[in-house]
């Protein structure tokens, strides 16, 4: 048994060293083409030089600078495991049963789609959601990720679930999925989900707030934190836009990025305040 654990550790260590610069590990439920695109995205961020960030923007992102190393470091700490759309966490939970006391909408913000077709998953922070479940129910939760059994005891357990929507819905029309602009859009999404791996107390996981009005009225698609996931996403996309512009992105690519930035900025509620991003542990 000990030997098996040792092999498991060695396997994950090896997996962490190869494939992508952030050492993100992919569950078998992630289709090969999706994994390949994400690895390409990570290589792009590891090789893209962004302009110097303003002190305000660095504070929002909680990084010391916008170097490739800092950005990869942000992801390495907050997005370690990726599971695919077919991954059913309810079947992989061990030693505790989930109750439905916590509203997952604060992470996924899906509308009540019934009787409409099921909403496609883009990406959501499963680990943070399970952490809040464990915390609110005072339970010990472990999640079976094949060779790893992860004890959910920190908001920064860093397990995210992705779906086809990350590539099909989260893309600029008529532009290749491996174009710079579409890669930048997805990178913005990784950073958004990364911020859900931060926070403590009532602000653990930086949950979204219900929008009181506007496009997303009554959806959990707004935020009260000036350094929350949407703020992080809009801030990073601003720099990625500039990089895209200097690297010859087309006008449509740049327009797509601008629309995204406008959308994410529009979700910050008036009076949003800065919150402590230090991650909580049980």
């Amino acid at each position, binding site marked *: 048994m000990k030997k098996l654990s040792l092999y498991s550790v060695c396997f994950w260590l090896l997996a962490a060293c190869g494939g992508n610069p952030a050492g993100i590990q992919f569950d078998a439920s992630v289709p090969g083409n999706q994994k390949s695109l994400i690895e390409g995205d990570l290589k792009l961020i590891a090789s893209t030089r962004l302009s110097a960030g303003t002190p305000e923007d660095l504070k929002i992102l909680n990084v010391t600078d916008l170097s490739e190393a800092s950005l990869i470091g942000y992801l390495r700490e907050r997005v370690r495991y990726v599971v695919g759309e077919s991954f059913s966490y309810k079947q992989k939970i061990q030693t505790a049963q989930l109750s439905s006391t916590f509203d997952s909408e604060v*992470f*996924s*913000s*899906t*509308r009540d*789609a019934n009787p*409409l*077709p099921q*909403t*496609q*998953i*883009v*990406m*959501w922070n499963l680990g943070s959601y399970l952490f809040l479940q464990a915390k609110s129910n005072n339970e010990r939760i472990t999640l079976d990720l094949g060779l790893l059994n992860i004890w959910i005891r920190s908001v920064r357990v860093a397990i995210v679930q992705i779906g086809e*929507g990350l590539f*099909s*819905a*989260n*893309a*600029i*029309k*008529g532009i290749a999925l491996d174009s710079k602009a579409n890669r930048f*859009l997805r990178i913005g*999404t990784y950073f*958004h989900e990364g911020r859900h791996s931060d926070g403590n107390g009532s602000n653990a996981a930086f949950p*979204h707030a219900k929008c009181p009005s*506007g*496009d*997303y009225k009554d*959806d959990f*698609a707004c935020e009260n934190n000036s350094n929350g996931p949407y703020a992080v996403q809009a801030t990073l996309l*601003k720099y990625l*836009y*500039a990089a895209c*512009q200097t690297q010859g992105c*087309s*006008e*449509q*690519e*740049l*327009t*797509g*990025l*601008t*629309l*995204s*930035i*406008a*959308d*994410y*900025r*529009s979700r910050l509620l008036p009076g949003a305040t800065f919150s402590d991003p230090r991650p909580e542990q049980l």
Partner: protein
Amino acid sequence: MSHRIALIFVAAMALAAALFTNATRYSTEPSSGGYDSPRFQPSVPTLPSQRHSSAPADTNFAELAQKAFDSLPRIETLRTSGESVHHAPKILLDSSEALTQVSMALRDHPEFADQGIEFYRACAHNDSLMTAVRAVCLQRLAFWTKGSELENGAHSQELRDLAQGLPPLPRH
């Protein structure tokens, strides 16, 4: 000699046919479909052949703008689509295509600036459209009106802040 006369006659007939086609197009009303005031005037000339623009050569600007306007993302469409709103909705990102067609046509043919301003003004004013697309329209409207549209109080402070906080326009 008679061969040359015949050639000139054929060329003249072709020119007349082309002029007649354009004259017919002038009288065509833009399609209806929610493009509120101000509407485009029907007497917009046909765009010249466009080697550097994504706009089809045989489309006039009014038609292009009307089609673009009709395709802009509406809040109601979003609400009934059941689409995830955790991240920027697909219908919003899809509008990059229509906005780009309009901006490229305007860049290549600044003589249509007045019609372009009308398009951006109608878009920025229309509160049934998604806020993000209205902000992008307002930013472009401000560019074409040299900033005056941001200062005349016609738009909410929230929308103005959003438009002013956007990255610089691509190649205008």
